């Protein structure tokens, strides 16, 4: 046991290999998901860049020290946490944006669905629709609006 612990402690190389392995597999996994179209490219850009950052820092260990020094961080791994947290933060914001966009779209779809169902019921029942020809409305009808983009 003692031997093992000391060998791990002394061998920083092992940690680095693990780090390189993990970050590369993370990158490849994200790449695979995009290729299989399980994630859309636009959403995955942040994932890809952050996993690339991990690869860079796991290979170029000195880089982390330089970065830490630049930021005035005494303990280099803390710089790693900082980068990690920022990346996660950005990704979560991106998620919030997408969720908001999706819920807005779902709301509009639900409304349009309900209105169309009503229109369909009216037509099925053979009742005359209130405005068979909506002359004034045709120019007013806007293309299916995307309030998110506005």
């Amino acid at each position, binding site marked *: 046991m003692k031997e093992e612990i000391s060998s791990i402690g002394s061998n920083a190389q092992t940690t680095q290999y693990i780090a390189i392995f993990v970050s590369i597999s993370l990158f490849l996994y994200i790449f695979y998901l995009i290729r299989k179209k399980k994630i859309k490219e636009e959403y995955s850009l942040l994932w890809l860049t952050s996993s690339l950052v991990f690869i860079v820092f796991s290979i170029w260990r000195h880089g982390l020290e330089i970065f830490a020094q630049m930021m005035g961080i005494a303990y280099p791994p803390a710089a790693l946490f900082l980068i990690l947290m920022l990346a996660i933060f950005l990704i979560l914001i991106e998620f919030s944006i997408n969720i908001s966009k999706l819920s807005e779209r779902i*709301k509009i779809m*639900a*409304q*349009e*669905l*309900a*209105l169309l*169902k*009503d229109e369909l019921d009216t037509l099925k029942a053979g009742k005359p629709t*209130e*405005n068979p*020809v*909506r*002359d*004034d*409305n045709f120019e*007013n*009808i*806007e293309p299916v*609006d995307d*309030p998110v983009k*506005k």
Partner: protein
Amino acid sequence: MHVITQHFNQPMKKILIIVPAYNEEDNIRGVIHKLHHENEDWDILVINDASTDNTSAIARETGYAEVISLPFNLGIGGCVQTGFRYARNKGYDFALQFDGDGQHSAEEIHKLLAIVKNDEADVAIGSRFSRKHNGFKSSFYRRIGIRIFEWFSYLLIRQHITDHTSGFRAYNRKAIHFLADHYPSDYPEPEVVILLGKNGFKIRETFTQMHERKGGISSIPLTKGPYYMIKVLLAMFMSAIRSKIYHYERRN
């Protein structure tokens, strides 16, 4: 507008009463009957916000109302917006928002309609507080909240509105078209005031008698009061600092 009036020989303005309803099986029949007896020319549209009770069937049964059922619960904002979309698509001149829980009184609709019909304003709000002596009593905390809204909205849009949470409102055609595309979700009433004010719509408030709630539950649970206040104030502020979506100049 003139084309359509001549074409269908309708000298009358088309008026739609939008009734958002969520689990209002106890009240909805009475509400529809009252509205219908108040004026038979008004079209009544019940938007059933995916109720889990018989609201939709009971409303249809009356035979006086068109009933639209949402596929899932959208909340009061999404529910009312569906009504505006309907009103826009069918070319209505005026739309009224009238709660399905029976707290608004149908007789007071004329007051609100008169304001938008005479073009005194684009939107008329039925307020509980415009006069001192009225039948409505609200809790202390709610009154504080209402005061904060009043002050905050005057700061933002320079229009005096006392009852921001009132869901008793009349809208003209311009407002209908605008709100069909831009209606906030969640707790929309105060935010709509800012949105409309910001985009150049004129809002006029008038005192309307309101009944105590007969059944159902308030859309704002008291326990969520502070959360509601903060969320709504933030939404109001954001609406005010957003750029104009619509450039609208009133004629008068």
